[in-house]
């Protein structure tokens, strides 16, 4: 399968890129290539070969992983933690629809949008907005051959303050499954992504898979 991965330069995206490259043709998309729709279309378009069949969108600006109390946040911090995240996702989705004949899009994000997260309100708003974009596009593009999903993952899998805060939150919450470390959660994420990318998920679209040892059980 020909798969594009955003956010492959670090952390969770790098994890996915490395694993999927074992048996798929992986194309890594840089942050700069998501800054405009035009750039995203050029990056995701056919590169002389066959078109892409899937996108794993794991990118968020590094600023998003920094904590910040909303009542003290500057406009620039808000943009970096929320709106810049959304712009990149919108450009990715728009480009996918324009340059791909169909395929699967999996958006990977922390689960903080499901229940909000103190200190990460701006990024949690972006996460929930992304989940809604996935659902709306899943409904709009299903008959055009597209399936879209979200993976809402444990904050432990991300970076910066978000991952450190994830440690503290994990200590407070009781997981439904025995506590899993970051390496185990990482494998859980890879397995979930592989499932959603595969034909085994042909009947699913618009779904959210929680990969967090059962901490949050959304609807």
């Amino acid at each position, binding site marked *: 399968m020909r798969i594009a991965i955003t956010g492959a330069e670090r952390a969770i995206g790098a994890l996915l890129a490395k694993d999927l490259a074992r048996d798929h043709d992986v194309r890594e998309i840089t942050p700069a290539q998501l800054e405009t*729709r035009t750039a995203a279309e050029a990056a995701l378009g056919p590169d002389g070969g066959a078109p892409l069949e899937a996108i794993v969108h794991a990118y968020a600006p590094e600023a998003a992983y920094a904590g910040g109390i909303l009542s003290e946040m500057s406009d620039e911090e*808000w943009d970096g933690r929320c*709106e810049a995240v*959304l*712009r990149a996702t919108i450009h990715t*989705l728009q480009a996918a629809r324009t340059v791909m004949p169909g395929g699967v899009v999996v958006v990977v994000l922390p689960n903080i949008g499901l229940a909000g997260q103190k200190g990460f309100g701006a990024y949690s*708003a972006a996460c929930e*907005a992304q989940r809604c*974009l996935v659902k709306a596009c899943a409904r709009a593009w299903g008959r055009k051959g597209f399936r879209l999903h979200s993976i809402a993952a444990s904050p432990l899998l991300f970076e910066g303050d978000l991952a450190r805060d994830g440690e503290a939150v994990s200590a407070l919450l009781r997981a439904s499954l025995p506590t899993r470390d970051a390496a185990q959660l990482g494998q859980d994420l890879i397995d979930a992504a592989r499932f959603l990318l595969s034909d085994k998920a042909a009947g699913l679209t618009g779904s959210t898979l929680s990969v967090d040892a059962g901490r949050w059980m959304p609807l």
Partner: protein
Amino acid sequence: MTGINCEGRTVLLTGAGSGLGRSLAHALAEAGAEILATVRRPETGVEVCEEIQAKGGRASWLACDVRRREEVDAAVAAAVERMGRLDVVIHNATTPLSSHQATLEKLDDEFWDEIVSTNLRAAFWFARAAYPHLKAAGQGSLVLLTSGAGVEGVPALAEYGASKAGVRALAKSLAQEWGPDQIVVNCVSPAAMTVAYERVMEQDPSWADHIRRTVPLGRVGDPLEDVAPAVVFLASPAARYITGQTLVVTGGRTMLL
């Protein structure tokens, strides 16, 4: 026992000049609140305040473009100056583009900025500006209007839905951050016959039949009779132990949890 009224509460209400907002202004005033109504068009501010005052209510208005931070900050400052304190902020204002239907790939960055600035960024700005005053009030409340499009994902309202989904998550995070200050933060997700809804019905006459088939109560809600009471409740002291929630007022069309 705490009553479900807003007697003595001071409220900043955005988008009060028309549609659902106008109904909210009337309902809050009838429940005893003093209101600063922000509007886009001054004439609507004059009208709604005269209507409220004619019934013995207390209201003033202010023109405010919620896409501009300085006007948001000025609205909060004006509310505190005119009413002496600020107990409740209700962000209802949106853009006419919110009802513009098109799938994501047909939209441009300017459209997205219009949507996100009025629905999500403005919610952040109002929250940030109002926080110290809501904290000082002692039993503050922030109510954010969201949408079912932000829960279910609607094909032709992807960006609008995304902005409203962001509002819900913002509310949950704020609820956690402001809880120690006894400020509650909640959302209302309504389905009401507003101007935008009427526009949708005109564009697609089959929508009325769709409503009858998919809404258990078989009708679109009335802004004043069906939706406003929910907002009044969340703005009142009766809701002081409810925070981080979304009250879905859609006649049963959306059933969460």
